[in-house]
């Protein structure tokens, strides 16, 4: 048995370290370390309640809108505030745009460059993918980064700027979109859709979303141009659907408020039991292997954050969130599975669990599903109605929780306010779930489980499969321990 430490593990948003125990060319067990702690939950305490809208989004510069919306949602719950319908639509639009931008950045900048490694030089697809996705020099970024920047012009309209905006308020959003702004919005969204269909999908969104079976997906991959079909051909060649199987249960808090409920449903999914409800009261964070002072597992409404970098049993600054005592996997795949997306269910049934392939595919399915929703929301903005309800007074005392979905999965903020000041603030970010350390029962977190059993052969820790598995989760390490 050899123990190797992999790090700095990059292209993951923030820093990551993974310790692998390898025997006979197979990963026996993995330990995932979040090596950065910034203390946001400590910094928030004592400040006026509304200052959470300034501080909390700065946990993360890549999912800043998601953090804003979770903080807003917690304040809305605290104050019983009903936002203006236009504000809900505008927030949905900004939130979906951020999530799409994140999916795109992950695909092109973080994930695909691993297929340009020399280890793949003999594969038939290598020359094309190396030209297109080489890190920094690949020509894909010359198209994809400007398309991302153009899509983020939506933030200029709704949020003033990105990342880190204060447009998101308990009453709605602060910028009223006039007729011209609404037309610019529709135009930016249409332009992005054209780009996405032409460059990534190789098909119109509706035709792509009509693919419902694994066989039809294979047919699509073999017959279409575009970056997603190219990825799917590589995935088939390398059997990436057999790599990185997650813990089984997928969880989503539900995403994008609409009058009829969330666009993507909340709940749990696994291949055996199908969909079932998620009870947030059953969430608890375990710190037995976290560099935090020992404490019993606690619901985040009560849990504390007292770092202890010297704790012998600790190996990460991330806590270990568990749902009814068990780890769950979160992310676009979980959102789409919980919402009943047919192709995602077919992939999960075929592979028996979440995999590298299905995680990547689910982000593109989600993007394709969001584009028509975005267009619909933009057209639903009511020209004569307010974007922000007058609701500037939150109660001096109370509690609230904001459970939303960031690009990388379930995000929760829990706030308690006393005498107008924040008395308690806890955050569980998506990657806290996915990259959690072991709990007191010794149960590994989702990534730790996904890495165990991976064949690395003579390459050991340098095996590229390790790279694919870790990056398939699209981790955000800055959020993880915050």
């Amino acid at each position, binding site marked *: 048995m050899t123990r190797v430490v992999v790090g*700095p593990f990059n292209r993951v948003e923030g*820093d990551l370290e993974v310790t692998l125990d390898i025997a006979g060319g197979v990963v026996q067990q993995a330990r995932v370390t979040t090596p950065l702690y910034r203390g946001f939950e400590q910094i928030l305490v004592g400040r006026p309640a509304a200052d959470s809208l300034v501080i909390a989004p700065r946990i993360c510069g890549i999912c800043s809108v998601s953090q804003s919306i979770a903080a807003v949602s917690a304040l809305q719950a605290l104050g019983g505030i009903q936002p203006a319908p236009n504000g809900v639509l505008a927030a949905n639009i900004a939130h979906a745009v951020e999530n799409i931008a994140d999916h795109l950045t992950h695909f092109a900048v973080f994930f695909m460059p691993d297929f340009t490694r020399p280890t793949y030089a003999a594969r038939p697809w290598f020359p094309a993918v190396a030209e297109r996705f080489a890190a920094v020099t690949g020509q894909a970024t010359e198209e994809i980064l400007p398309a991302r920047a153009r899509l983020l012009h939506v933030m200029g309209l709704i949020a003033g700027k990105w990342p880190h905006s204060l447009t998101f308020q308990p009453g709605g959003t602060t910028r009223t979109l006039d007729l011209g702004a609404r037309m610019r919005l529709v135009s930016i969204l249409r332009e992005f859709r054209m780009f996405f269909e032409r460059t990534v999908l190789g098909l119109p969104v509706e035709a792509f979303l009509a693919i419902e079976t694994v066989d039809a997906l294979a047919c699509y991959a073999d017959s279409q141009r575009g970056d997603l079909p190219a990825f799917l051909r590589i995935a088939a060649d390398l059997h990436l659907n057999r790599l990185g199987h997650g813990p089984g249960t997928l969880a989503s808090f539900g995403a994008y408020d609409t009058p009829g409920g969330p666009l993507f449903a909340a709940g749990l999914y696994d291949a055996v039991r199908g969909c079932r409800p998620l009870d947030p009261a059953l969430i608890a964070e375990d710190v037995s292997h976290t560099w935090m002072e020992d404490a019993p597992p606690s619901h985040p409404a009560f849990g504390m954050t007292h770092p202890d970098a010297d704790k012998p049993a600790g190996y990460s600054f991330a806590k270990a969130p568990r749902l009814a005592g068990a780890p769950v996997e979160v992310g676009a795949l979980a959102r789409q599975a919980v919402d009943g997306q047919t192709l995602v269910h077919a992939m999960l049934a075929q592979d028996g669990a979440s995999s590298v392939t299905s995680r990547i595919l689910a982000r593109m399915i989600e993007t394709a599903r969001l584009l028509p929703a975005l267009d619909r929301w933009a057209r639903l903005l009511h020209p004569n109605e307010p974007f*922000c309800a007058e609701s500037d007074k939150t109660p001096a005392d109370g509690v609230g929780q904001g459970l939303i979905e960031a690009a990388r999965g379930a995000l929760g903020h829990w706030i308690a306010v006393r005498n107008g000041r924040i008395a308690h603030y806890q955050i569980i970010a998506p990657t806290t779930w996915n990259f959690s350390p072991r709990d007191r029962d010794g149960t590994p977190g989702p990534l730790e489980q996904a890495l165990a059993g991976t064949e690395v052969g003579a390459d050991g820790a340098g095996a590229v499969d390790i790279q694919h598995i870790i990056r398939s989760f699209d981790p955000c390490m800055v959020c993880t321990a915050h």
Partner: protein
Amino acid sequence: MSRPLKLLWLQAGSCGGCTMSVLEHGTLGWFADLSAAGIELLWHPSVSLQTGQDARDILHRVETGAVPLDILCLEGAVLCGPNGTGRFNRLGGTGRPMMDWLQALAPLAGVTVAIGSCAAFGGIAAGDPDPTEACGLQFKASHPGGLLGTAYRSRHGLPVVNIAGCAPHPGWIMESLAAIAAGQLQAGDLDPTGRPRFFADHLAHHGCSRNEFYEYKASAEHPAERGCLMEHLGCKATQAVGDCNQRIWNGGGSCTDGGYACISCTAPGFENTRGYLATPKIAGIPIGLPLDMPKAWFVALAALSKSATPRRVRENARADRPVIPPGRITK
């Protein structure tokens, strides 16, 4: 230009938002801009291929001098805690605190650049109670020193270049890097806190689309109203440096244009404001008046302009869209 300048970008106590911002730059993407400016990325944690051992090898070659370090960029605050050990932020796979890496690498750098208010001054990470003992490279809030000390100069004789902002405009970052690469950024181009003067010699207020409301002190009282945000809603644009309203953000926005207060994110210590979205007042007068204006004059001018406010300006200030269009007074 003889050879591309080698740029190493590191992230410490960071949210990654400065990188997300600069990735918005350029009609052919940021990498094309870097290349055009004659800059080669030695390694960047978010975008480079090299990981694990390969990344450590790059850092080792830089530290031993085998590879020249022309530009060192840091994104995020330097975390010195707990108890000065720096262990709240070890660089993965190296066992070494980022603080140590920075102390080792900064003396080798041709120019050292703090990307964002965290790397410059500590920023949000240094917010009270400062649980991680965070600081910037050469400042802790407005106190000179930081990690590297007041005497630090990079090989080219510059103090740390502080591209403040949370997050900075992508143009502030890329234009600063391009100026450094062209050898055109001199000590005199920096303000006393190390911020490039091309954006720091302006106020966020300059070019604000709410200017007419400011002139007449016609103020918004609730979020989304069109009036000036200074009197009631916490706006610090008349004190905050930045050409924010002379540029466009994300294709056509800015904080004040987006309907919310400037929180002075380019200023050292902005993290310890209490009540960002409400203006603190004494006897009804905002305490944060424009920096270089005698208070009595401001109060007198404000009273005069309030008395002269056209009805259009007064009523539009309290509405979320223009309710009275511009036009000649008809009665």
